[in-house]
């Protein structure tokens, strides 16, 4: 348009289009989502998580906690009742928590049947972190008994059982599950409850850290990611468990001088390469036949690939998914390398593609929100210091404040003789 008045402020075709408004984290919607999850029933579809209901409790409480509103928007009586519920999941001996009340045999529980109502590593981890988020000081946990139970789950190769069950005697060594998730959970529980050496009331059996590290290292795959066991395909969820476990065991960063014990990732730079390679934009949300649970391989990205809306996938040639925005960026954060990803692009993926109109995040674009993805989406944004979200601690997947509270507990510190 040649005749346009150059002093006019009206947009014309000769001017560049206005920049896309930057999406924001809709805090009010997320608050509403979490309060609804906390105060009303979760839909029937969550029945498949019934045996790990404490993980749902963790996502709901932690979700509101990392956006900084748990203490403001819930009543002290409510939090006390939730704390009581969490402690009701602790087994009577005080050595660990069950995954949820579904197996609680209450007054029928006896030494003959208690193997069907066992404490589990996930149940114990999720209850402890949730208790901490709610302001509890863990005084009702028997630290020595819990730590010895954790140590009792370790096998000679360094891996951990998820729990002791009544069907265990029917297993053989090679049918046992031995993936890095359970080492991570054991390492996290140990980090929280053990604290400095000598702070326990009696000598308490510890886990074999060297063997645990060796097992984690052995899960490295041919492409330098890590899988569920030696030889398994690399998977970002397992990579997170490996890196976070090493971090909580104090074995992630080798010192400058060589040491005689196993430490670190076998090939840290190569694993960093694998991790940053996870960042990718969805390639098929505009397709007519897009289905959120489609199993067909997504079409490959264009070449060169777009720079906007890049989330993270969990394996090569898979779709990006909200939770990997945490599993991957969390790993890089622990390796002090989170600046190597395109945080703005990840932010676009989360806030423009998977954030839901009713609050929370879905697994993939157009998916309804669920508590896992809603929590992990927020924690991922917290790593890159999103406004409205607290500082977070990637190793424990919770607020930095919670980690600092644990570090400040007097009972974790070595008693010095007066």
């Amino acid at each position, binding site marked *: 348009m040649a005749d346009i008045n150059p002093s006019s402020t009206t947009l014309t075709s000769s001017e560049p289009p206005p920049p896309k408004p930057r999406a924001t984290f809709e805090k009010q919607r997320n608050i509403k989502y979490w309060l609804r999850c*906390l105060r009303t029933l979760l839909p029937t579809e*969550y029945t498949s998580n019934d045996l790990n209901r404490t993980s749902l409790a963790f996502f*709901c409480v932690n979700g509101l906690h990392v956006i900084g509103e748990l203490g403001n928007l819930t009543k002290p009586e409510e939090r006390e009742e939730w704390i009581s519920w969490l402690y009701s999941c602790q087994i009577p001996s005080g050595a660990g928590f069950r995954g949820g009340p579904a197996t*609680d045999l209450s007054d029928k529980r006896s030494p003959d049947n208690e193997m069907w*109502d066992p404490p589990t590593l996930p149940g114990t981890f999720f209850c402890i972190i*949730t208790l901490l988020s709610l302001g509890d000081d863990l005084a009702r946990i028997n630290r020595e008994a819990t730590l010895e139970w954790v140590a009792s789950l370790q096998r000679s190769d360094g891996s951990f059982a998820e729990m002791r069950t009544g069907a265990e005697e029917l297993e053989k060594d090679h049918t046992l599950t031995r993936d890095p998730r359970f080492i991570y959970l054991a390492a996290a529980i140990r980090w929280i409850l053990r604290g400095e050496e000598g702070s326990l009331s009696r000598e308490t059996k510890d886990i074999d850290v060297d063997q645990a590290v060796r097992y984690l290292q052995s899960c490295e795959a041919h492409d330098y990611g890590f899988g569920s066991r030696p030889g398994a*395909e690399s998977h970002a969820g397992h990579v997170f468990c490996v890196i976070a476990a090493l971090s909580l065991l104090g074995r992630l960063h080798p010192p400058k001088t060589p040491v005689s014990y196993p430490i670190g990732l*076998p090939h840290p730079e190569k694993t960093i390469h694998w991790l940053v390679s996870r960042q990718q934009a969805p390639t098929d949300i505009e397709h007519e036949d897009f289905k959120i649970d489609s199993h067909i391989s997504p079409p490959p990205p264009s*070449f060169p690939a777009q720079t906007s809306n890049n989330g993270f996938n969990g394996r090569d040639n898979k779709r990006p998914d909200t939770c990997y925005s945490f599993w991957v960026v969390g790993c890089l954060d622990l390796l002090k390398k989170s600046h190597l990803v395109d945080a703005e692009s990840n932010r676009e993926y989360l806030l423009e593609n998977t954030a839901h109109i009713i609050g929370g995040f879905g697994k993939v674009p157009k998916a309804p929100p669920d508590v896992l993805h809603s929590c992990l989406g927020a924690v991922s944004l917290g790593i890159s210091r999103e406004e409205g979200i607290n500082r977070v601690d990637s190793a424990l997947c919770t607020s930095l404040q919670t980690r600092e509270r644990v570090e400040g507990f007097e009972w974790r510190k070595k008693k010095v003789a007066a």
Partner: protein
Amino acid sequence: MASYSSEEEEEEELDYTNDPVWADVTPLPQDDGHNPLAQIAYSPEYTIAMSYLRAIMAANDHSPRVLNLTSDIIGMNAAHYTVWGYRFKTLMSLDRSQTLEDEKIGWSWRQELEWVQSIAKRYEKNYQIWHHRQLIIDHLDDPTGERAVTGEMFALDSKNYHVWTYRQWLVQRFQLFDEEELAATASLLEEDVRNNSAWNHRYFIVLGRLGEAGPEEGVVERESELAKEAISKAPQNPSAWNYLKAVLRKGGIELATLKPFCESFAPILSPDEIKSSHALDILSEIYDEAGDSVKAEKALELLASKFDPVRKNYWRYRRRLLGSKPTPASDTPTIQATA
């Protein structure tokens, strides 16, 4: 007594309160306290069945009716690890007393496996189902038909992690590192050359056997040719590039031997002809190892500015690392490739 078999009957609701089979059991309801967290809107059927399960477990009852109860619950919550364990223990106890296959119970391990497969197809993303299958096949000590069963699952989702884990266990347990297994991965890759699970499995079969000596003669050549062909079809496929690099490493062949191959996909002096960011990435490493920092920098800059800008921070980080190659790890010996 009701049959444990067909799917139609399985859908039939169990009537715990009126069926005389359950008359001696006092259900044990769930105690959720005053204000629980994460309360789920259970279906009434699930609530009732779980109350009977708790009562049955409290009594360590492993009688045949447990098969009905546990299949009922699994149909509503297939991720119920306790109920799977309880079912397996019951099956084993019936098997040991040699009553599993008698007329009264009329069940068999083969029927159990068929039922398990029908559940697996309904709940694809489930670990417990495959662990249960693993325990049964281990007990029967017979892998017949099991590769076909996993094949059915791959037809639904060729990247199903749980099924691949089971397949790896099967291969290891029954030593199936054979032609059939190799052909299965080849056929999956034919269907979808970007199937990373199939590439990983191929590596596991061909080169990943633990505690084994170096690869047999010709294997490294055969496998690198396979990867190169796949790359020619899809130069942006990371799975094939990762496989190629891993095969060469295992065969003790230097990365530098890939230089002409990579340059054919990424001629850094003719950026318009570049077809693969992965080729550029490997070339930067090859140039760096050869001490050609100018070319190495050029490759990384092309990645950062044009061919993989979402990772520009990473490629610039790599540029800063040039010339500081760590010594090769002890598990990756490098020997000169023979012509």
